[in-house]
């Protein structure tokens, strides 16, 4: 492995601190607007339409994280730079957490909106099931990592697996769920960007929430990369 002591700083701390402050302000505004703006009232949905600002960005964020992780895995295979491996792992971890939060928020939303009086927590909705399958596939990446001790071999095998896992994402989150009848919108096109499915008053808040959560992902991910790089440095250069 390369000597970490000669490595140039992997993270621009000034940029990190600026983005961290900005996302704090931004998300505060998003949450405020999400609760305070009036929205059209629909039967069944009622106020839960506001979950659009929270549940849906979880998935956008997870997808962004998976793409970031796959990018760094590909770069690792091209360059053998251990920092790429660290970045891929941390992006995958944070993305996985956003995926879990997406599933949990979806369960609660559906249970108390569409399944009132029926007590259904999990209905094998196609999209729900497919993202659960995706999270299992993606979770295997971490299991795989922890099963290989030798760092270079672990990094290479994990990078290859990560690329395969990421390649299943578009199919499991977009293609397959839209072929089947579902509680989720989307069979008719792209619900997030279509002209008819989303009330104009909700649109800016929705997009702001997506941007905010993705930037929040970047902050958490960068924080974890810093920690992981320190750990590696200590491991290789004991005091």
């Amino acid at each position, binding site marked *: 492995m390369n000597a970490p002591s000669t490595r140039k700083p992997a993270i621009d701390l000034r940029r990190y601190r600026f983005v961290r402050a900005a996302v704090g302000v931004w998300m505060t505004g998003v949450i405020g607007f999400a609760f305070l703006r009036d929205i059209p009232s629909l039967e069944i949905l009622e106020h*839960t339409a506001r979950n659009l600002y*929270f549940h849906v960005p979880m998935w956008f964020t997870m997808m962004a994280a998976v793409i970031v992780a796959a990018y760094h895995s590909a770069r690792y295979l091209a360059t053998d730079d251990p920092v790429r491996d660290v970045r891929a792992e941390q992006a995958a971890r944070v993305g996985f957490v956003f995926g879990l939060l997406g599933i949990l928020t979806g369960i609660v939303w559906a249970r108390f909106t*569409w399944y009132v009086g029926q007590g259904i927590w999990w209905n094998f909705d196609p999209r729900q099931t497919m993202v659960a399958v995706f999270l299992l596939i993606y979770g295997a990446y971490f299991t795989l990592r922890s099963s290989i001790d030798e760092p270079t071999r672990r990094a290479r095998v994990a990078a290859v697996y990560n690329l395969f896992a990421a390649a299943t994402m578009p199919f499991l989150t977009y293609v397959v769920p839209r072929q089947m009848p579902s509680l989720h919108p989307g069979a008719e096109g792209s619900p997030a960007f279509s002209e008819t499915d989303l009330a104009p008053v909700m649109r800016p808040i929705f997009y702001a929430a997506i941007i905010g959560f993705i930037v929040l992902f970047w902050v958490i991910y960068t*924080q974890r990369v810093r920690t992981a790089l320190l750990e590696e440095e200590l491991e290789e250069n004991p005091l």
Partner: protein
Amino acid sequence: MGIWDLEPVPSMQIIPQDTTATSPYDTVWTQVPEQQPEGLERVMLAEDKLFVVLAVVLIIWFGLLFFLYRTDRRLDRLERSLERGISQDPDESVVG
């Protein structure tokens, strides 16, 4: 009729709806509950289901908070190994 032509939520009036027209977010999957909601549902359905949104926000908040604590634990370990002046045992580096 676009859905944004409807009254905003706070008016709380019942809006007559043509259910045969476009059915956004699906009436097919829904059965109207016959009995009054009880327990958890009574709480969640109050205020036009606003508490469902609160629950979703809290799930995200606690999830991120939990994650923050995990990162903190790793920093604690780093600080301890700095104090001891030895590197940590790689076998002990916990996943996550």
